[in-house]
């Protein structure tokens, strides 16, 4: 847990939670999941450790459009589940150190040859956000986060389809869809990964889907075909929901 926010209450709750054996549910009238959710920082109070304030506004706004709140079901949105915190924590950590980074780089290689970018993901984000905001300024006289939802969706679609041409903006090593790909996959990972990484607050994405998390024992269930599994998820730290 690398989360930066240091409220006394949160520290107390987290410390207590980590000491709980799996199966201990109630704590002063709160379920462990409720306690974990309370312990998770409020997104609006969170101070990013990797992203600058401008970049953070972009990440918050983009995550909100990639996984919006509302809709037909009960699935929460990226902001309700602290997805931006997940991305910030990952970029702040050892993310990308596993990539083989020796040159020469051929950024024009066919897509089937995989990642041939001379940047680690951290640089992809910094560059991508700067150029995306620059495109928004040119076209809308506003940064991305200040656009209407419709214009944000359009800008994201242009990134996804390389309609925003980074090369025309002086960036030869990266195309917009590569930045969009990193952003989208990290957003989904933050939404669906265990809450230990800072996203999926309260395991709400798992609850909506019906994924039981780290329960990891289904001897009696594997034989029961076409019967919905009745129990909610458990997290790596033993919270239940």
């Amino acid at each position, binding site marked *: 847990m690398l989360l930066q926010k240091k409220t006394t209450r949160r520290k107390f709750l987290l410390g207590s939670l980590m000491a709980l054996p799996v199966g201990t549910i109630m704590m002063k009238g709160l379920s462990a999941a409720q306690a974990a959710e309370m312990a998770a920082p409020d997104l609006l109070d969170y101070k990013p450790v990797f992203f600058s304030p401008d970049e953070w506004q972009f990440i918050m706004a983009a995550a909100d459009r990639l996984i919006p709140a509302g809709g037909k079901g009960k699935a929460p949105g990226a902001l309700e589940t602290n997805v931006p915190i997940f991305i910030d924590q990952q970029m702040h950590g050892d993310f990308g150190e596993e990539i083989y*980074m020796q040159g020469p780089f051929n950024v024009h290689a066919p897509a089937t040859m995989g990642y*041939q970018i001379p940047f680690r993901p951290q640089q992809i984000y910094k560059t991508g956000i700067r150029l995306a905001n620059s495109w928004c300024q040119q076209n809308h006289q506003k940064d991305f986060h200040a656009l209407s939802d419709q214009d944000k969706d359009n800008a994201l679609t242009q990134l996804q389809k390389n309609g925003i041409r980074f090369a025309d903006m002086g960036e030869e090593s990266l195309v917009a869809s590569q930045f969009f790909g990193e952003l989208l996959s990290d957003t989904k990972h933050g939404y669906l990964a265990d809450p230990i990484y800072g996203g999926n607050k309260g395991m709400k994405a798992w609850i909506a889907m019906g*994924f039981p998390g*780290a329960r*990891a024992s289904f001897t009696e*269930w*594997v034989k*029961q075909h076409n019967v919905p599994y009745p129990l909610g998820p458990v997290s790596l730290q033993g919270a239940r929901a």
Partner: protein
Amino acid sequence: MAQVIKPEVDVVVVGLGWAGSLMSIELAMAGLTVRALERGGDRGYEEFAYPKPADEYAYAVRNKVMATPAEAAVTVRYNMSETALPTRKWGAFAPGTGVGGSGLHWTAVLIRPTPTDLKLKTYADEAYKPGILQEDMRIMDFPFTWDEIEPYYTKFEHICGQSGKTGNLRGQIMEGGDPFEGPRSEPYPLPALEDTLNSSMFAEVAKKMGYHPFPNPSACVSRAWINPYGNQIAPCNYCGYCSKYPCLNYSKASPQTAVMDALKRMDNFSYEVHANVLKVELHDDKKTAKGVIYRDAQGNECFQPAKIVVLSSFQFCNVRLMLLSGIGKPYNPITEEGVIGRNYAFLSNGGSTLFFKDKNFNPFATAGATGQMINDISPGNFDGPALGFIGGAKIHSSQATGTPISTSLPKGTPAWGTGWKEGMEEWYGHSMKISITTTCQSYRDIYLDLDPNYKDEYGYPLLRMTFDWKQNELKLQQYLKGIVGNITKELNPDSYSESFLPMDAHFDLTKYVSTHNVGGAVMGDNPKTSALNKFLQSWDVHNVFVPGGNAFPQNFQANPTDTIGAITLMAAQAIKDQYLKNPGPLVQA
């Protein structure tokens, strides 16, 4: 740099995955002093206690127990005229590292090839008219008979606690097993895993269509098992974290669960981790090895003298070490001289994802190897000659994982936004797959060598793969598409999506296929076309043995681990019975 000279041992083992751990225990049990050097870290049980492995992000996304590309990249190009590029991130494959190697994260499908798979060249010569097969194909027979290798399959399967249904017991075909399997001397040690819903649905339809479904043979043990080394393996609890994960229940046979416990207790065995072997040092006449040079955890260059050198690292690393050490002549694809790097092969996969609104598959309640498969479309079991290609596939419906990041969504579901979110909620747990795992033949211009441009952290060249799909494999894919399509229609899903290679496909490094990379230092009868004899002994340097997937002359449809285990055990037996008494070539060329 000053070199640290280590005390001489009888055997130095390079890499401590399945091949290295099996070779270590077999030779240590024969009384030899054995020292294993492992590039990665130690990986003991305590690292895998529940709930740590139940973490999709760490293990399946961030590849927590795999080698990193930063330390183990290879370079790839489609043909000899291109400049190869490095695998900066893993995509199509992801080799393991550390104690246990790829035997720690494997899915544990423990299946034998058929007798025809092992004698593919003989079958091709008998069944195919000249000119039907591609001129540049270079398939070969494995250099042993079924009867020679069968006891070693049996032995390895007992080490793992293989769970499944016997199909052919000493020539007698058994109901419910695979009627195409080679005769077994003994039945499966343990009964099959339970079927999940998708497995039952697939098996029922396949049977109705005239195929012969059988449960995936598995090393996720279905019952408590004590193996021949005295190690205990716990019954699988279908936790849902298997492929890419160490087993939190100690139910998946791995070098840790099946070998290392007993091995670590032996006084004549020792091992060192973060010991990166750079080179095998040869005597001046190049006929024997003196030992190996490695970099230890502190960065010291060390020399480990040994009477026998076993290269048992991942297939790529074995081939690369041979090339870096000058063991055997490097392969030249123009003249076809030389053998190291020859006959590299990968494999392809594909299949259909079926979506059913009204079915709950509970995909998290599963073992990696859970499933049912058919072997009807493997070489010799269908009319390949009339179709103009050689090869085949196992066709299976497995449910290897049910973790959320890997969720499949129906065609047309948006990749993001409200539509994606609603799709996840609507379709998670409502899909099943029918998958193919195919053969892959070897070819004159598909090979491995040292890359001229890219180097590892020590300044040594990376291994270079020259690989792309050939017409034979693409024709096979198209044929399988038809079969899977028919099974799909019979299952009548609400919708489905297909993934098969089109006839103009190139190898796509971005999509995970498997880590069943084989060949490059293959076993054979002829030193002009093989690097190793049937006991995995280098033809050129007789005290070097090279067990691993590198020894396969082409890839069959069965998963490789059973065969890697069997050939390693056969080689260990030959070392014990023959080589120790009379060191020298075990097979006269």
